[in-house]
Each structure stands twice: as structure tokens, then as C-alpha cells.
């Protein structure tokens, strides 16, 4: 709560200090508010990406569909992929990482709160910039991994929006990566050694290192693409000595770690949800940690499995076949350990658990189909067919999205102080589970029946009619399930059951503080003695029976806030500089697209001004 304000006037506008109102949300540097902003924005893009999917499925429900012409279809499938990957799965993961990393390690915020804000605004502006292309001549239409030379040759501005939009979004990810690495390594509560951290924190750490090293690679490729398109360069033009395959190598060196970036946070969530709802510790903590790290390293060695039909030669193809087969091993370790977590437990079938179990079940299928792709000669058949589309939807939707929903249902009471309805939650789960399998299960069959990817239509005689129709029905069921979730969220705002600090009887530090948490998170930074420290403050283990016996004084401290003097805690103050600097990036983007040097340079000047203002501003004002 801000008291009488004496603030420094350094720039044109005085330092924002408000804690309520729209301006307070725009200038916030509080990781919790930024987490909510990330989550709401990502969900909005989920709706857009979902509408694109419904349009695609409607076009393909019958042969010779007339709903979308080739041009519109190509924009829709490209934007569906870009949206779901860069504007939904990654930011929704960022939302939960943002909100819960400081809470789970006993910190009051992240290491760099203004970089945190900057990352969010860059994400929002980058996403809007990308979508503005629909209204300004046409969206990107070269596919989400836009191969060269097609990505250079496609007319219009669409693929230039692609090169600049992803570049901007990459900056957001790099900011987040730096922030989480420093926060996790430096700001853990006393006593929380690395091997006492929750698994979700470990997965965030590995994900952040992957982001840090992968995004610069695609940044290079995107710069080369921008130069080829906007300034007549020839990086990918074989007529002038360029190499189209260079794009593929650079893209997939980024692109494969990218898929682990998308799945590891969800795996972390599942590793928190299962122990809570089975009422026992995670099975094989060290193995899950080390297999996560192993996946992080090995993920760099498999990229050319996306290029098996490019003609790299039998030696390269064999090497990548082997590395792809063996990356299945650490993934298998996780699956076994999650099952080991459930085994012997006392399982409560609440919505978070349903989604977490759904993750495990669907990820097994996606993982197994992934291994079949490593059989290179058969991949020569499977590649670029719907069989591949089936695989990645099983791991990214059945996996990552289900895992993220598990996290949303699990952590919703902590964020908003009210629990989502269990009845509607279960309905959402079953509609989504059945709809998902109806939509993507048939893709395996269609792919094996020879239906290629990225075709806007197919003729009647191919034998693909039935399963395409089934798939479209499933897609609409997913949409209805999503509506149920939205209804649940809206209803819960006013009518949801008030949640206390620890509604699930959970194990980690975020459940020790009120719901929603105060701005400063912890009144007193906790001292941690064990892994799952909170659980062992609540329960002691009876020696002979190993029963968990509740210690009544060991619960969450809900009343402490009213007695504690929060004036003595200094939190970083809000700031508008991150928004200013973030705004500069799409302005520069438009300058490139419209070949307008004034706009480009103007945006650059704004960026520099923004960074200077930011640098000269202290993170917290002295006088309060």
C-alpha cells in the first residue's frame, strides 16, 4: 500500500505509483500481475489460433472444399502454427513460470522486474504486430517453419511480417530466460539447495537455458531472411551462391530445442500436480531432474531428424536416427516416474489431476509415434504427411496444453483467491479429452493413407473423406469444451468458492501464503530444511506405520499479514520505461516493411530513449 508520496521527478512524467487502475497494470513490475497479463493474453491468442484451426478443419471436412481458397488457407495454417507455438504455449508457460517461480523458491519477485515487464509488453506488441498483417496485405503464408527459397519468393509482405514478428517475440523470450536463470540461481530461500527445489523450478531452469541458446540461432536466420526479402541479399538463393538448406539447419537447430522449451514447463507442472493429488512424494526426484537436464543437452543433437529427406547422406541420416531414438530414453524415465508417483498413492480425482494424467496418457502416444519417425526409411513415407501432424499435436496439445490446463486449475485458487468449479472442470476435461482424440487420432490413419500436410484441398477418390469428417467433428467438440472453461472462469469471479491458502493440501511454498498473495509474497522469507518443506511442517511420519499425521500448528500462515509491518519491505516500484522501449520494436518493424527510413529510425530513437530512461531510473524510489 503506497503511503504519502514524495517521488523524484526525473523524466517528463513522474514515476507511476498507483496500485490500482488500468495505469497500474500497464506500469506494473510485479511478477504476479505480469503472470496474469501473460495468461490472459495467451488465452486470447488461444481463441484466435483455435478459430484458425476450426476454419482449416471446416475446409478439409469434405473433398474439394470451397470454404477457403488456397491463398487464405495458406495464411490460416501458417498463422495457426505460429500462434499456438509463439503466442499460446510459450507465453502460457511463461505466465505460470512468472507467477510461481518466485513463490516456490521463497522470493519476493524475480531478479529483474523491469526486464520482466519489458518481456511481457514485447510479447503483446509482437503478437499484435504479427496479426496486423491480416489487415495490411496478408498474413505470413509460408508455413510456420517457412523453408527457403519459398519464404523469400512469396510475394507481398506476409513473410516479412514473419521474419520481423518472430524476431520481436524472440527478444521477449531472451529477456525471460535471463531473468529466470538469475532468479533461480541467486534468489532461493535460505536452505533451498538445488536438489531441494521443486521439479517445476528445475524444468524452468533447463527451459531458460534452452531459450538462451536457441533464440540467437533463429535470430540469425530471421535476419538473413529479412535481408533477402527487404534488401536483396542472397543468403538462400542458389543462383547467386546461397544455400536453401542453410535455412533448414539454422531453423531446426532452434526448432528442436524449441519443442523441449514448450514441453518441459508442462512436465514440471505434472511433477507438482501428481504428488499433491496422490499424497506422496514424486517418485525418483533425482532421475526426473537429471533426465530433464539430459533432454536439454540431447535436444541439441537431433535437429536433422526434421531433414531426413533433404539429402544429407546416409551417414548423417544414420547419426540423427540414432540420437533421436536415444532421446526417447530420458523421456521414458519421466513417464515411469510419474506412474511410480501414482502407484501406492491415495489419488483424489480433481480436475488438475485429470489433466495431468491426460498429459501422461497422451504424451505416451506422441512419444511412441515420435520414435517411429526415427526409422529413417519409413520416415521418408511419414514425413510431411498427417502422421507427423498427429505426432506433434499429441505431444503439444495432448502434452503441453493439457499440462498447462492442469497448472491453471491447480494454481487458479492461489492466483485469484477462488477455486474453479469442479463440475465444470471435469466436463471441460472430458470434452477436451474426447474431442482431442477424435480430432488427432485419425490424423495417424490419414497420414499412413498418404495424405500430405499443408494441402488446402484433396480430391474425392483418395479414400480420405471419412476420417477428415470425424476429425472436424472432434475439433468442434474441443471448441465447445473451451467454452465450458471460459464459462467456468467467468462464473468463478463472483461465485467461485473462496479458497484459503492451501485448498489442495499441497507440498510447496506457494501454498504457505494467502490466496491471492500480498504484493510482497512472504512476510518473512522462509528457511527451508527439506524438499517439500511445507508438507513436512504439516505432517510428521509415524515411525512404524509410516502414516502421515497432521500437525495442526504447521499449516499456512493466513493471519500474519494483518500484524506484520509491511512498510519495512521495499518492493521495486512500477515503471513505464519497459512499455516505451517495447513499443519501439514494432515501430521499427513497420519501418522495414514499408521501407520507410523515418519510421525505422524514429523507432530506433525511441528504443534508445526508452533504454536510457530505464537505465537512469532506480528500481525503487528512496522516498516513500
Amino acid at each position, binding site marked *: 500500500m503506497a503511503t504519502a508520496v514524495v517521488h523524484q521527478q526525473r523524466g517528463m512524467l513522474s514515476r507511476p505509483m498507483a496500485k490500482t487502475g488500468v495505469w497500474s497494470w500497464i506500469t506494473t513490475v510485479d511478477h504476479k500481475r505480469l503472470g496474469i497479463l501473460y495468461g490472459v493474453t495467451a488465452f486470447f491468442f488461444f481463441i484466435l489460433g483455435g478459430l484458425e484451426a476450426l476454419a482449416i478443419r471446416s475446409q478439409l471436412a469434405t473433398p474439394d472444399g470451397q470454404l477457403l481458397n488456397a491463398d487464405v488457407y495458406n495464411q490460416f495454417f501458417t498463422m495457426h502454427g505460429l500462434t499456438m507455438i509463439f503466442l499460446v504455449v510459450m507465453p502460457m508457460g511463461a505466465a505460470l513460470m512468472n507467477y510461481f517461480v518466485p513463490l516456490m523458491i521463497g522470493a519476493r519477485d524475480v531478479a529483474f522486474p523491469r526486464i520482466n515487464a519489458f518481456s511481457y509488453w514485447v510479447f503483446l506488441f509482437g503478437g499484435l504486430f504479427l496479426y496486423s498483417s491480416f489487415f495490411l496485405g496478408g498474413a505470413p503464408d509460408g508455413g510456420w517453419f517457412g523453408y527457403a527459397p519459398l519464404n523469400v519468393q512469396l510475394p507481398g509482405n506476409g513473410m516479412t511480417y514473419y521474419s520481423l514478428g518472430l524476431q520481436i517475440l524472440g527478444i521477449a523470450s531472451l529477456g525471460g530466460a535471463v531473468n529466470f536463470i538469475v532468479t533461480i540461481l541467486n534468489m532461493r530461500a535460505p536452505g533451498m539447495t538445488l536438489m531441494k527445489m521443486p521439479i517445476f523450478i528445475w524444468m524452468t531452469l533447463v527451459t531458460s537455458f534452452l531459450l538462451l541458446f536457441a533464440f540467437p540461432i533463429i535470430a540469425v536466420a530471421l535476419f538473413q531472411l529479412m535481408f533477402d526479402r527487404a534488401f536483396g541479399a542472397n543468403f538462400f538463393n542458389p543462383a547467386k551462391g546461397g544455400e536453401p538448406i542453410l535455412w533448414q539447419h539454422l531453423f531446426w537447430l532452434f526448432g528442436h530445442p524449441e519443442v523441449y522449451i514448450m514441453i518441459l514447463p508442462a512436465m514440471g507442472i505434472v511433477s507438482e500436480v501428481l504428488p499433491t493429488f496422490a499424497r506422496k512424494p514424486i517418485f525418483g526426484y533425482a532421475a526426473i531432474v537429471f533426465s530433464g537436464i539430459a533432454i536439454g543437452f540431447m535436444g541439441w543433437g537431433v535437429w536433422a531428424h526434421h531433414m531426413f529427406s533433404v539429402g544429407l547422406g546416409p551417414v548423417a541420416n544414420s547419426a540423427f536416427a540414432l540420437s533421436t531414438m536415444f532421446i526417447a530414453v530420458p523421456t521414458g524415465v519421466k513417464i515411469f516416474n510419474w506412474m511410480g508417483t501414482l502407484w501406492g498413492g491415495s489419488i483424489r480425482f480433481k480436475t488438475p489431476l485429470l489433466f495431468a494424467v491426460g498429459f501422461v496418457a497422451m504424451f505416451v502416444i506422441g512419444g511412441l509415434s515420435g520414435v517411429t519417425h526415427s526409422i*529413417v526409411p519409413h520416415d521418408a513415407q511419414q514425413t510431411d504427411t498427417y502422421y507427423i501432424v498427429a505426432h506433434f499435436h499429441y505431444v503439444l496439445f495432448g502434452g503441453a496444453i493439457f499440462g498447462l490446463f492442469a497448472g491453471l486449475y491447480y494454481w487458479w485458487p492461489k492466483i485469484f483467491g477462488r477455486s474453479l468449479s469442479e463440475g465444470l472442470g471435469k466436463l471441460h476435461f472430458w470434452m477436451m479429452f474426447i474431442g482431442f482424440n477424435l480430432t488427432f487420432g485419425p490424423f495417424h490413419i490419414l497420414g499412413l*493413407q498418404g495424405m500430405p500436410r499443408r494441402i488446402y484441398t484433396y480430391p474425392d477418390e483418395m*479414400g480420405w473423406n471419412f476420417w477428415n469428417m470425424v476429425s472436424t467433428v472432434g475439433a468442434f467438440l474441443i471448441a465447445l469444451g473451451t467454452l465450458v472453461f471460459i464459462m467456468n472462469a467467468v462464473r468463478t469471479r463472483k461465485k467461485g468458492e473462496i479458497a484459503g491458502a492451501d485448498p489442495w493440501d499441497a507440498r510447496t511454498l506457494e501454498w504457505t501464503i494467502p490466496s491471492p498473495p500480498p504484493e510482497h509474497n512472504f512476510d518473512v522469507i522462509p528457511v527451508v530444511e527439506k524438499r517439500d518443506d511445507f508438507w513436512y511442517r504439516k505432517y510428521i511420519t509415524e515411525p512404524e506405520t509410516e502414516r502421515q499425521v497432521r500437525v495442526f500448528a504447521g499449516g499456512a500462515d493466513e493471519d500474519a499479514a494483518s500484524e506484520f509491518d509491511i512498510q519495512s519491505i521495499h518492493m521495486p516500484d512500477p515503471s513505464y520505461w519497459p512499455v516505451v522501449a517495447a513499443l519501439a520494436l514494432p515501430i521499427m518493424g513497420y519501418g522495414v516493411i514499408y521501407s520507410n527510413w523515418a519510421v525505422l529510425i524514429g523507432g530506433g530513437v525511441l528504443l534508445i530513449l526508452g533504454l536510457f530512461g530505464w537505465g537512469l531510473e532506480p528500481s525503487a524510489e528512496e522516498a516513500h
Partner: protein
Amino acid sequence: MKSPLAGRTYRGKRLLFAALAVFALLAFAACSPVGPQDYIGSQEGSQASRSDQLWDLTFGIAAVIFVIVEGLLVFTLFKFRQRPGREAAQFHGNTKLEIILTIIPSLIMAGIAVPTVQAIFDNSAKAEGALEIKVVAHQFWWEYQYPDQDLVTANELHLPVDQPVHLTIEAATEDVIHSFWIPRLAGTQDAVPGRINTLNFVPEETGTFWGQCKEFCGLSHANMRLRVHVEEQGDFDQWVAEQQAPAAAASAEVAQGEELFMQSACAGCHAIEGTNAAGTIGPNLTHFASRETFAGAMFRRTDENLNQWVANAPDMKPGVTMPSGIEELGLSQEDVDAIVAYLQTLK
């Protein structure tokens, strides 16, 4: 007899129905006829059948693992559901089990790796006495050159049965990446500008096999199809001889069509041996009427389709380079009819 539903919880009943529904759908799928590009139901080329054997091995293992893991998951959820009086067992792990469960998948992978690597190397080897064909991919059609037989054709490939072929796969330098795929005969290889890839296989049965471009290449990627006719050696030789012969002589109304063809933009893009038409931008039309289809195997070669195509190709195939005959080249409907009549004589 006790009903299979008796004694099951509500969840159990729903799971049972779901499993039965899935089984019914799959049974239906398995019993449907094999589609023209289906490479699981049937293979007629050496590469396709060999990779199918690898698939059978791998899919078999995957199916077993699927049943065990998912079955165990469902079993665990039932057996350890919360019930009054049950306490969760507080164990943290089992190192021995972890090691076993790491070693077993590694051994399975090693077992699959060996035949896989063998097949990778075998597929890259060119056989003795293989028939050489150069495949050049364009947006949005396929050009085939038979260097040893000195003939050029488009979209429909002819191969003699039981003879190894060695295809070199390319794309024009100014074009984009495509991918040449005849599922029932062999896996795909990309056609990359600036690069030459190869495809080696033996067609093992006669018949007509369908394929299409598999690497997204622009507006009419979906329409860039192809056919392969695998024939007895005698039939193949006859086809070669017909293709090597000059274009069939014109007659009556057809002569007007030929004249229009040569004087309009047509001759600038298309080649017809023995005439002044020597363009290389579009498909070689010397023996156009010997093919079942045209426009990247997108349409059957009927008078009606051909008429619509010559009149307005961009309307029928988005992104195509060929201009509209009536709107852009100023041809009349009679002109189009005559050109079609001429093209249909080019056997």
C-alpha cells in the same frame, strides 16, 4: 452370466464404452479399401516394402509398449484411488527399478537401430544397370528426362517392372523446394534448388500409382500431383518408341489449332519436337495426348477439362504461371477449341 458392466464404477463403464468405440472405429478403418496413396495397406516397390518391414517391427513394439503402459496407468488409477482407510505409501523411489527401466528401452532402441541403419545405406546405393531418369520439379508440375532414351515428358512417369531405377531429383535454380513422392513404390526425396538428390528402387508390380509433391511449395502445392505407370518391359519399350517419334501429323481443323499454338504465347513456354515450339518453361507437350492427366496430374485429359484449362488456367489452379488464354492472350472460344483439338492429337 454376469454383465461385463456389473461391478464397474461409473468411470469404469465410461472407459469401457470409450475403448469399444475406438476399437469399432479402428476395425472400420482396417476394413476400408486401400487408397491410391496408402503406403501401409499395400506396397508395390522395393523401397516401400522394405521400409514397411521396419514399420511392422517398430509399430509392433510400440503397440505392445502402449498397451502395457496405458493399461498400467488405468490400473494404477483404479487400484490407488482415494478410499476411506487408505493411506498413501510414502516411498521416494527405487533405484534398481529405475536402472532396469532405463536399460530396457535402450536395448530396444539398439535393436531397432541396426536394421534401420542397414536400410538407410542400402537405399542410397545405385543398382547395376539401373534405368536413369532425371526428375525436375517446377511450381507446380513435374518434368522427366530419360537421358539414355533421349526423351522428355511431364507428370506421368513410365517404368518397366522389376528393373531397378535411379532417379535424380532436382528443382530449377529459380524455383522452390518440392518433394517427389510415390508412396506405394518408395519414400520421398526433396527436390532442392542447387542440389541433386537420388532415389533408388525397383518397381515390383505393374499398375498405375499415384503420388504428389510433399514439401509445401506455394499456392498449388495441393495440386502438384503425379502418376507412375509400371509396365511389362514390352509395353515400356513401345511407350519409349512412341515418345521418341516426332509429334503426330496434323489434319483438318487441327491444322488451325497448330498454327494458333505456334503463333501465340504457347510456343514460348512449351516444346513440341519437330515444330518451332521449343519453350522450356512449361511441360514438354510432344506426346501430351499419351498421358491420362495433365496440369501436374490434377485433371483427367478430357476435352472439357482441356478446354477450360486453355481458356483460363489460373482460374483452375491457383498460382499457376500459365496465362489465361481468353482473358490475357486474347484467344476466342473457337481458337481454344482448335488448340484443344490439336493437343489431343499429340500421341
